[in-house]
């Protein structure tokens, strides 16, 4: 295999640094000696060990912080923390080299232009048509159709055509039929960033809806007739209910503080027939600090029980997760049990509102608990409604105060739900982890920019690939073997207890410790179940084939007895023998599949973009390589052998051998 590396972007062509040590987090004695490579997209550490050249790959866009620590006798330590919770400590013998690497990485990890991001150079060798098809996989207009829209109460509004009203909203929005353009525009002027109330989810069974907006500019006493009419329109769009809930997801104190700045919350006296509710989810700064504290616990060298439990509690992380869940549960209950519509907002309506609306939708509608439905959900509540991916996840160099794990928290909420309803989700934990990974990886265009408007301007769909397509093609890796479409749990609303206890929520080791192989159970039940399920399917097919054959045999026998006196018709027999051939193939296919199973162990899933890169290279080893590479000049042959034939994610290779061994026996 040939690894193509583009050096152009690196200001100083950092030569490979040799004799670098990769420190084992737990045991300081054990450090792997190897060579460090910097490429345009990755940091790669290749172990020197002669038998297995273990590799650790880190995408530049995953790098969260780089820390140069005090030089010691062995060299100069460099600590790299990643956004996907990987932590790597390197010891570079020469202080100078270390400094060079440090400077290069700082530059590489903080691109200033979108064009520098990986997705613009990433090429999975799909032709134009396939790429376009990929972007069509998730279609929001289909989704609104699925909800039963448009109908007598809701219509598609073109008021935001060309982003005239609100530049962070999508162009296609559903609003109540009775809300005229005048009302909408009036209302938008009374809302932060002009994010007026628009439909997020519609429950066709009882006409209740979830709408979302930003906070009203009410200050201490301001009113806006159009905004009041807008809320009335939402209420009227649900004829069976005589009120709507207005849920402010902020703590009351925060909302009140906003009044001084001319913002605030709805006054129940001014809006008729609303029930106002605060649900205290903290702001992005609190969340960022909370995650930081939790990660400090995860980084402890050998955490004792007390370190871990106290640290986890003090981080407050699970308490915040609970707050988000509580809000989602409240809304889901209002919609499903009271049949009331809900308007949700926070300050700008793009963080907490997105979290809460999507959790509520997930609880309400089993469609969102399927693979495709979940992609649609993220597309709808996060991507299209202008969640600021670029700011929150620091894709481009920007204000560090804007960074916050907002969607990470949502993804964790989903995981917590999966733990409580193991049969209700079509997808598994790996699916969530890979989505989280790619939100930061910038390998696909889906999560780029802060709004639909920016993405359209950048022509993202023409220049990058869609993650949804990639995940969908590999969906076999992401299926939950326990999923039961017909299970009572799976259908309709998921019912959680009224006040779920805090300790229902668990620490998600699979996410935050996922690079600590030793922290994970050594054997994956999910993979075992998948194997059993695959086997079941094979047996089912086998059974079907056998039944078919039996039928045919019986028919033939019947015919034989019928035509006994005559000479047998050769045509019948020939027909039979062809069918025989086709079934004879089954066992071979079968054993072939079983053999291929072990490659799907969790450590080997496409955890990392590196996999795609290597697969890419696998393919690119054929002659048309030069034709496809337009950056041929400055291409260097790194001749990195991808580990075990490019089937596993190199960044997680340590300790993999045993895991894969264990995966093998499952099929034995």
């Amino acid at each position, binding site marked *: 295999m040939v690894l193509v590396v583009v050096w152009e972007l690196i200001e100083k062509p950092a030569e490979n640094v040799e004799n670098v040590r990769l420190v*084992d987090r*737990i*045991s300081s*004695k*054990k450090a792997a000696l190897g060579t460090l490579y910097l490429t345009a997209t990755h940091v790669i550490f290749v172990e020197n060990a002669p038998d297995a050249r273990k590799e650790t790959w880190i995408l530049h866009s995953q790098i969260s912080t780089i820390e140069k620590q005090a030089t010691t006798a062995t060299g100069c330590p460099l600590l790299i923390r990643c956004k996907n919770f990987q932590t790597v400590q390197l010891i570079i013998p020469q202080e100078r080299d270390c400094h060079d690497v440090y400077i290069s990485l700082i530059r590489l990890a903080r691109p200033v232009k979108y064009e520098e991001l990986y997705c613009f150079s990433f090429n999975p060798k799909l032709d134009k048509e396939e790429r376009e098809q990929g972007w069509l996989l998730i279609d929001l207009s289909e989704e609104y159709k699925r909800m039963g829209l448009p109908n007598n109460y809701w219509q598609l509004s073109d008021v935001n055509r060309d982003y005239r009203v609100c530049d962070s909203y999508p162009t296609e929005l559903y609003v109540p039929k009775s809300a005229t353009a005048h009302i909408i525009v009036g209302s938008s002027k009374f809302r932060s960033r002009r994010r007026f109330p628009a439909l997020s989810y519609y429950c066709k069974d009882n006409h209740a809806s979830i709408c979302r907006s930003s906070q009203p500019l009410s200050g201490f006493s301001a009113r806006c007739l159009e905004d009041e009419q807008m809320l009335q329109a939402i209420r009227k769009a649900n004829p069976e209910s005589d009120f709507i809930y207005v849920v402010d997801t902020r703590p009351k104190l925060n909302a009140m503080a906003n009044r001084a700045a001319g913002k605030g919350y709805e006054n129940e006296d001014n809006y008729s027939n609303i029930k106002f509710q605060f649900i205290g989810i903290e702001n992005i700064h609190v969340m960022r600090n909370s995650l930081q504290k939790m990660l400090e616990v995860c980084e402890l060298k*050998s*955490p*004792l*029980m*007390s370190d*871990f*439990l*106290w640290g*986890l*509690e003090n981080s*407050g992380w699970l*308490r915040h997760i609970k707050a988000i869940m509580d809000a989602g549960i409240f809304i889901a209950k209002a919609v499903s049990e009271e049949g009331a519509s809900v308007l949700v907002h926070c300050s700008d309506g793009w963080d907490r509102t997105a979290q809460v609306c999507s959790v509520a939708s997930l609880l309400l509608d089993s469609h969102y608990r399927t693979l495709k439905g979940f992609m649609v959900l993220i597309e709808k509540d996060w991507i299209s409604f202008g969640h600021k991916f670029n700011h929150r996840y620091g894709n481009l160099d920007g204000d560090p105060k804007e960074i916050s794990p907002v969607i990470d928290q949502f993804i964790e909420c989903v995981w917590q739900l999966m733990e*409580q*309803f193991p049969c209700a989700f079509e997808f598994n934990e790996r699916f969530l982890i890979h989505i989280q990974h790619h939100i930061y990886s910038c390998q696909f265009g889906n999560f780029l920019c802060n709004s639909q408007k920016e993405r359209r301007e950048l022509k993202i769909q023409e220049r990058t690939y869609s993650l949804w397509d990639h995940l969908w093609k590999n969906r076999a890796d992401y299926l939950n*073997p*326990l999923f*039961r479409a017909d299970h009572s749990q799976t259908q309709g609303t998921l019912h*959680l*207890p009224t006040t*779920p206890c*805090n*300790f229902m929520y668990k*620490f998600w*080791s699979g996410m935050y410790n996922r690079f600590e*192989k*030793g*922290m994970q*159970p*050594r*054997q994956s*039940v999910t993979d*075992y*179940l998948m194997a*059993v*399920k695959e*086997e*079941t399917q*094979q*047996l089912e097919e086998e*059974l079907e084939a*056998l039944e078919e054959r*039996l039928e045919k*045999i019986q028919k033939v026998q019947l015919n034989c007895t019928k035509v006994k006196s005559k000479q047998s018709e050769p045509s019948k027999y020939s027909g039979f023998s062809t069918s*025989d051939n086709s*079934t*004879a193939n089954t*066992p071979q296919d*079968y*054993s072939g599949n079983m053999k291929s199973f072990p490659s799907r162990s969790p450590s080997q899933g496409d955890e990392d973009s590196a996999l795609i890169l290597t697969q890419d290279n696998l393919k690119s080893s054929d002659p048309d390589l030069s034709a496809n590479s337009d950056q041929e000049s400055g291409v260097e042959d790194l001749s990195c052998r991808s580990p075990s034939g490019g089937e596993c994610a190199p960044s997680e290779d340590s*300790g993999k051998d*045993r895991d894969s061994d*264990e995966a093998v*026996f*499952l099929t*034995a």
Partner: protein
Amino acid sequence: MWWGGRGQSFNITPPKEEPEMGSIQGSRMPESRSNQLGRCLASGCLPGEQILAWAPGVRKGLEPELPGTLICTNLRVTFQPCGWQRSQGTPLSSEYDFALVNIGRLEAVSGLSRVQLLRAGSLLKFIPEEILIHGRDFRLLRVGFEAGGLEPQAFQVTTTIVQATAQSSQAHQYSGITLSKAGQSSGPRKLLIPLLETSEDWEAERKKQGARGWRVSTVNDRFDIATSLPRYVLVPNRTLDSEVRRAFGHFHQGRGPRLSWHHPGGSDLLRCGGFYTASDPSKEDIRTMESMLQAGHSDVVLVDTSDELPSLTDVQLAHLRLRALCLPDSSVAEDKWLSALEGTRWLDYVRSCLRKASDISVLVTSRVRSVVLQEHGDRDLNGLLSSLVQLLLAPEARTLLGFQSLVQREWVAAGHPFLTRLWGTGANEEAPVFLLFIDCVWQLLQQFPAEFEFSEFFLLALHDSVRVPDTLTFLRDSPWERGKQSGQFNYTQVYTPGYPQPPAENSINQQLSVWDWGLRYSNEQILQFHNPGYDPEHCSDSWIPRQQSYFMVPGPPNSVWLFSRGALTPLNQLCPWRDSLSLLAVSSRWLPRPAISTESLADQEWGLPSHWGACPLPPGLLLPGYLGPQIRLWRRCYLRGRPEVQMGLTALTISGLQDELSHLQELLRKWTPRLSPEDHSKKRDPNTILSQAC
């Protein structure tokens, strides 16, 4: 099948002090329904069991709510759902029965605010609308009573439960259920758990382990060396019984060094009590003791098993705290749950046990040597560690049969004082060490879900068994007491339920053991004891005898080590007495203790972090993780009283898929023979495909 026969009848020996509540029965019961219902209820009674009171009610808290009858007898409280029939073969129910001795706390509730905690002698102050029975096994039974004329019954059954619980608090009065002569069923072939009450059992065990340098000694045949020891012990070949007798005398309560397990690579795992320092052994005795501890190896490691592990008091306190924390109304603020959990210390104790066991298994596998587990009493932590080490090292111990044999050997036969530790006989030595062990095993099951033949459900069953006074296994402190109870010592050699008994023993009722799961579990439940994720093929691959002593080298000659605080320290001598005044010698024998090593022993030995689980581990060895985040709370067990937490835990499991698979295989098999023979020539036989695939 090994779990006991069907269609047996059971006798129960009632508590010695006959409850004097029989008069209540019938006299106050509403006549209208009592006759018919009474007969119906009585049919589920064990011999000697009396129904004291009952009331119709609805079981709450768990989905779905069940209408039925709450019954209090002189043995148990049981909730009998409408239409549910107690199976003849399963006289007790793991789901609906609460042994009176298991009841930890009783609460009567009326309305929203009136709650009365009922203790022995409490007078019920109101007519209860609901009763909450908290089991000491973390289960909760919540029954709501019907209104409309039946309030007296609700009142009565509640009062009766309070009285009955108070009278039955002494577990030692129970002698378990016995199998009557009539119990003769010709079920399928039964797998047997050797109860290790005969020398043949021990001999078989010795052979199975391949312990060639060892023999079964009958020196304790009459329990005259130690009543807490089994009648037979495994000692080195070369040691005479007379020497064994003298040597054992110099150990605490006569519990001298015995073989626990022989590693196929050559090492031996021994256990013994503390040196009895007040004794004054002769030089010859010391030599015997040393050779018994060395067990033919040049390298000996003494492991002080109480070092770095919780004391009995610690364990008891932690368990009490854990129980209090897991009560539905525990007053812990929600956001303080984690620190409160930490405050119980329970998980930390689990952690330290796993770490120690992991270290010991490294000691056993890294060199050919004798590893001696030494605990002052040799009846608690030694059993816990010895069993854990075997689970980590021996794939055999991870099977259903093997695990039960292990518990029988290292806990039941080895004289773990179950009665004292679990039921509290007033000596203040209550400490659920055994439950701590089960939690450790559960952690291993979480970390290695494909290595164990038994399931979480099985561990739960074992966990709950200690609170059911149905068999003597957990109701006595030692094999001697168990033997005393059953009348004589030369009973059947291997317990065989339903097996035609030899005429000589026809008169004795067969004693049941906890391994007769059929007493409390239906066949369907017992099927769930199997972990469908278990793959024995994998084990046989990595555990073939020819790999013996693959890399294991003997240690340096005459090396004696003490393993303490995660590190090996050289010792001057094995025994504390030699050549000088005992006290002085004891102090000089112990070299200064090293600081606690942060690196695991596996790391020191093989240069790998133990939890990393990387390549060069000896075959069969599991190294458990014991870092903070790796130790989890056993929710399905401890939070059973909080049904809201149980969501997802009782959902479809792995076994559902297994059922599906076997169903399909069954179908396939049915179809296969119906294929015409000519097809077989053209394609592979589906049966072979199946056997390869499964």
